[in-house]
């Protein structure tokens, strides 16, 4: 037997899972046999973003557990079972299903339950807590025969729940017992503005309402009766009025329980038993239960540290928070209510723009104690750094919340932050961590995110991360050379703008005006692509011919032996029997190897350069056109069969895929672009791994952007939901042209997004809110590309002078004797060197 200790983790919620991840990432992972219990049928998922379930995310999307996590790390997990008692004398844990485990250490992470106010009638039909994915499924069912939905509770989660009801298209109300929304985080002024903004969205907000009973309604299913005599009719009620720690097992096992509930823990997160820890919302530290996830994560880290033999100290948690509630920016820092004796308050209120800011400072005006921001939370990173690092405030602290009316910059420069300053609170990444990552070579935003995980949680620190990066680069004297190559002292984006502004149509003109030398494969290919995106002229035009890289130059894909593959377009993956027969006959005639691609079409391999025009003539005669498989351009729009045939289909995914592929075919871009359209959320077309992914839902189309398969897979980001087709196409037009204009050369949309300052929110603001005022231009440019589409192969075949290039030798009809095929599984493949030499020797 090993001398490993047995560690039992009770509860696989956000904090329990975070503890396991921390433990597995630590040096002591090998010291323990780890066993965990998960009461729910699903492993840990993101409870903070539950409302996204209604905006198109699936339970899988919300999961926090990477595939294979438990298997890889040898963790035993008991699903749908819960530990019920700990026998501390015999050191065993017993579960509801009767499993008994001998333990050395136990970590309680049993979390909390939604608080259901003790109101008569609170257990009526369609009165649901808002806490688990199972609750969400109940909501979905209840919503089907409801018109009005009401949330009891106007805190953070309550407002999230209200968003969920709005997404279900219900008339939505929020009933709050306290006199204001988010009473813990906001003061009266901030809460009033938030309420106004939420009401502007069509959500009814009732504050200071004490519900006395719930009875049969007149126009709806239920009627809520309030202590002040008021009433509210509703079909469905969600409880999100705070949490209650779950400590049944601790109580049953004789652990000390706090007066106001929760398992008592000390600074090492140990309970009254020195072999049992408690973390997260079930724990009570200093008579406080923390209803946020960040303190739970801090406790998880402390326990791992303690198990490793260190003396960590959990001494309370920063309850600061910044979030977007129903589209409204809200942030709260430290002590927003100015409860600290002697503290002073500055307030800025702008009724025109709907902005409210308040800061609480120490008596001597030197330290920031708290803040409230509503309507504009852009100041949060700076304020939070002042607060969490105890940095001395500027002479006039109000300059931090007043709008900048002059050139003076009041932001806290990243240079002023100490190395210990926490930049990313989700993953606890400090400025020091970022600097070491940069020393190790990560000098782009994307690389830093990848290496440190900073800005990959809530993303709130992305702007700060970028400014730390810029500042450190500058300090290190690293001048980041962004020139595309030695011939042009410009970035791709600069070159694009030059082409646009000066209406430059050829590489010759551009290099004469703005570059030096003859160019190279880097700038030629990039500029070839820019000119093609912007002017959309025939790419084999004399002026453009020399700019085309390997594949574009012969409108086919060069393979390892110098032969080419040919891919005719099959829009949406749709092909008629006649089409298939024609392709088969052509492939047979020219002896080509055929394979079905991942993009739902057929690839024909082994064509010599002189065969390309002949093959294409036959393909065109059979009704096919170029598939642009050779271009940095739109490749395919993959689709599932959709509502036309599928029993589960919600909408016609093939029809939309065909329409989109026909619209965007031929669009040249910094890199290839792939689309997919799924007819329902089963997602058979794998749209979330595409640059542009579309999924049919009951309310319309959901649009995902910047996904990727390949070497580094990335899930697409859900940018908009329930779109009608017209709006969908408008957004895709804008996104694609914005990508074409602003991406680096050979940058896929996924990397483009990772490096975009402001990320998804920024992209949304550009293409949906038209922040830059360019949407009309973007659409016009796309329309130009659509209007000037041509099948490049059709054009080539019709032009004798172009065909001249498609010869193996300019002076002979012989063929390249080094192109040799052998047979494998009934088809050709290129011979390897040995086979080739053997065959050539035989022929001599």
């Amino acid at each position, binding site marked *: 037997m090993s001398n490993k200790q047995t560690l039992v983790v009770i509860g696989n919620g956000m904090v329990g899972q975070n503890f396991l991840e921390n433990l597995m990432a630590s040096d002591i992972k090998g010291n323990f046999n780890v066993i965990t219990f998960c009461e729910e049928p699903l492993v840990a998922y993101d409870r903070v973003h539950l409302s996204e379930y209604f905006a198109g995310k699936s339970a899988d999307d919300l999961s926090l557990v990477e595939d294979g996590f438990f298997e890889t790390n040898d963790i035993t997990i008991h699903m749908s079972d819960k530990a019920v008692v700990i026998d501390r004398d015999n050191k065993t844990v017993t579960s509801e299903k009767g499993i008994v485990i001998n333990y050395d250490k136990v970590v309680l992470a049993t979390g909390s339950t939604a608080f259901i106010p003790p109101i008569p009638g609170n257990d009526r039909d369609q009165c649901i807590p808002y806490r688990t994915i199972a609750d969400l499924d109940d909501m979905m069912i209840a919503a089907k025969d409801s018109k009005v939905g009401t949330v009891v509770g106007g805190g953070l989660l309550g407002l999230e729940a209200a968003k969920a009801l709005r997404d279900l298209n219900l008339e939505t109300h929020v009933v709050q017992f306290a006199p204001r929304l988010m009473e813990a985080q906001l003061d009266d002024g901030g809460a009033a503005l938030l309420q106004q903004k939420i009401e502007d969205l069509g959500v009814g907000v009732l504050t200071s309402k004490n519900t006395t009973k719930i009875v049969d309604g007149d126009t709806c299913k239920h009627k809520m009766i309030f202590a002040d005599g008021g009433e509210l009719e509703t079909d469905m009620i969600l409880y999100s009025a705070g949490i209650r720690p779950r400590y049944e097992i601790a109580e049953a096992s004789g652990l000390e329980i706090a007066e106001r509930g929760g398992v008592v823990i000390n600074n090492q997160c140990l309970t009254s038993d020195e072999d049992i820890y408690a973390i997260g919302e079930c724990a009570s530290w200093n008579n406080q239960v923390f209803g946020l996830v960040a303190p739970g994560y801090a406790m998880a880290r402390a326990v791992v540290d303690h198990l490793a033999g260190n003396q960590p100290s959990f001494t309370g948690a920063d309850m600061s928070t910044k979030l977007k509630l129903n589209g409204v920016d809200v942030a709260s820092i430290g002590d927003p209510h100015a409860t600290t004796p002697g503290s002073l308050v500055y307030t800025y209120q702008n009724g025109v723009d709907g902005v409210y800011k308040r800061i609480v400072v120490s008596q001597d005006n030197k330290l920031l104690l708290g803040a409230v921001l509503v309507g504009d939370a852009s100041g949060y990173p700076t304020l939070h750094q002042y607060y969490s690092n105890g940095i001395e405030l500027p002479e006039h602290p109000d300059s931090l919340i007043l709008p900048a009316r002059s050139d003076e910059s009041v932001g806290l420069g990243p240079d002023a932050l100490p190395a210990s300053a926490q930049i990313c609170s989700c993953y606890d990444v400090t400025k020091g961590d970022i600097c070491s990552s940069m020393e190790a070579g990560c000098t782009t935003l994307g690389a830093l995110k990848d290496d440190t995980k900073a800005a990959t949680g809530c993303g709130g620190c992305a702007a700060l991360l970028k400014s730390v990066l810029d500042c450190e680069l500058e300090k290190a004297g690293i001048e980041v050379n962004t020139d595309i190559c030695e011939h042009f002292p410009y970035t791709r984006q600069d070159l694009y703008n030059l082409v646009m502004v000066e209406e430059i149509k050829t590489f010759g003109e551009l290099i004469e005006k703005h570059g030096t030398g003859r160019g190279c494969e880097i700038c030629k290919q990039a500029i070839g692509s820019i000119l093609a995106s912007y002017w959309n002229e025939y790419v084999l035009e004399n002026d453009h011919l020399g700019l085309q890289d390997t594949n574009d130059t012969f409108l086919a894909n060069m393979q390892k032996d110098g032969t080419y593959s040919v891919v005719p377009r099959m829009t949406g993956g749709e092909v008629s029997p006649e089409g298939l027969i024609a392709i088969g006959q052509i492939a047979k005639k020219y002896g080509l190897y055929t394979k079905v691609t991942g993009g739902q079409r057929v690839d024909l391999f082994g064509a010599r350069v002189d065969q390309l025009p002949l093959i294409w003539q036959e393909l065109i005669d059979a009704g096919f056109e170029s598939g642009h498989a050779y271009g940095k351009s739109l490749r395919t729009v993959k689709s599932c069969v959709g509502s036309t045939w599928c029993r589960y289909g919600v909408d016609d995914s093939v029809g939309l895929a065909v329409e989109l592929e026909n619209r965007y075919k031929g669009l040249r871009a910094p890199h290839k672009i792939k689309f997919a359209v799924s007819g329902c959320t089963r997602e058979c077309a794998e749209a979330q791994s595409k640059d542009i992914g579309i999924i049919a839902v009951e309310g319309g189309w959901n649009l995902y952007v910047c996904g990727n398969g390949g070497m580094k897979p990335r899930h697409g980001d859900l940018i908009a939901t329930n779109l009608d087709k017209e709006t969908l196409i408008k957004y895709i037009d804008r996104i694609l042209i914005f990508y074409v204009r602003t991406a680096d050369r050979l940058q896929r949309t996924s990397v483009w997004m990772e490096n975009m300052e402001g990320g998804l929110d920024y992209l949304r603001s550009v293409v949906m809110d038209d922040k830059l005022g360019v949407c009309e231009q973007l659409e016009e440019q796309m329309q130009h590309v659509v209007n000037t589409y041509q099948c490049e192969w059709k054009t080539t075949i019709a032009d004798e002078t172009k065909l*001249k290039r498609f010869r193996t030798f300019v002076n002979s009809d012989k063929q390249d004797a080094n192109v040799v095929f052998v047979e494998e599984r009934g088809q050709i493949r290129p011979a390897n060197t040995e086979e080739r030499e053997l065959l050539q020797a035989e022929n001599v």
Partner: protein
Amino acid sequence: MSDWIDVCSFDDLQPNSGVCALVEDTQVAIFYMPEQNEVFAINNYDPFGDAYVLSRGLIGDINGEAMVASPLYKQHFNLKTGDCLEDETVKVDTYEIRINEQRVEVKI
């Protein structure tokens, strides 16, 4: 000294691009840069990709020296000397070339 061998018409060349000629069983890649009024001839064999493809590479210059980038794995070859810019142990053959009364001629 070998003699000049007639290969093709000057019109057969592609401006700012390459073509391939078969000259006495040798595959010769021929490039034409009209702005500089220069023509180059090198062997068509790409030693990295083990395929006859260099005539189909993009051309230009690096540090002022005319070059072609292999269409397979993008190594650069000096068009005058045949030297590979990425690996000094690798070199492709180069050939003398001239335009003579609208005809392209090389020496093998």
